């Protein structure tokens, strides 16, 4: 699989290859997600939206943390929506978790609904990042938290590895400065960033 195909299938996983990508992400990203989630405090009764929920493993981790709350997962890929529902079957049946087929750009929720919105390994592919961040901000409660966690960000240590992915189009890898600027443009406040340069991991926390 060439890099263009890798980017395409991660942007919108479909078919058998897409399903395999979802399963692989569920395994491969587990440590990254746990590291990222550790940056915020999560109340047991929180309502959380996981945008670009992929195969649903992050939804499952979050659901374990909010026993008295709710976790919603949305993804624009029908393959991932199916996989996330399957993985969280018991929690879906008990209405603790809900999976909806939806893109980030037009979320099917009223304003001010969620305490926390999470975005793991997804905002590289958002069609209009500032507008999409505004849409995410809309569904957050006042003082709600946005958590972005990625395993790639613009850093000189990884320029040679990362640039082929952005060169083919359809994927954006942002710098810490980019995140600050974009979140400010979208109306967020108090942006905090933590990096692990040796892994190229980044966590971004912003408040509505």
């Amino acid at each position: 699989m060439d890099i263009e195909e890798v980017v395409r299938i991660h942007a919108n996983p479909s078919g058998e290859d897409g399903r395999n990508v979802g399963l692989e992400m569920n395994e491969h990203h587990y440590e990254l997600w746990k590291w990222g989630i550790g940056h915020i405090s999560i109340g047991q009764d929180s309502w959380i939206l996981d945008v670009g929920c992929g195969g649903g493993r992050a939804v499952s981790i979050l659901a374990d943390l909010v026993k008295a709350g709710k976790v919603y997962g949305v993804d624009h890929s029908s393959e991932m929506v199916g996989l996330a529902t399957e993985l969280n079957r018991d929690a879906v049946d008990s209405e603790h978790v809900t999976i909806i087929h939806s893109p980030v750009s037009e979320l099917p929720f009223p304003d001010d609904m969620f305490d926390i919105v999470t975005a793991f390994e997804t905002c590289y592919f958002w069609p209009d990042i500032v507008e999409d961040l505004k849409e995410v901000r809309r569904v957050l409660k006042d003082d709600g938290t946005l958590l972005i966690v990625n395993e790639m960000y613009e850093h000189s240590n990884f320029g040679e590895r990362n640039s082929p992915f952005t060169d083919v189009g359809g994927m954006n890898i942002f710098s810490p400065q980019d995140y600050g600027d974009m979140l400010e443009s979208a109306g967020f406040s108090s942006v905090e960033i933590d990096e692990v340069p040796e892994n190229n991991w980044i966590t971004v926390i912003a408040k509505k």
Partner: protein
Amino acid sequence: MKKDLMDILACPICKGDLVLNISKEDEKEIISGTLYCSKCNEYFPIEDGIPNMLPPELRE
């Protein structure tokens, strides 16, 4: 999808209320049907128990 989801689900375009039409359901959930926004005159299908809220131009 569970019927209770109607309490929070909004039209992705105008964020207004939706009207539920059920085609098939079992004891646990709605299996298929539609969600209709009268303001946008747009239908959103429920397929295999999952609401498809993609705007029409993004549907497969």
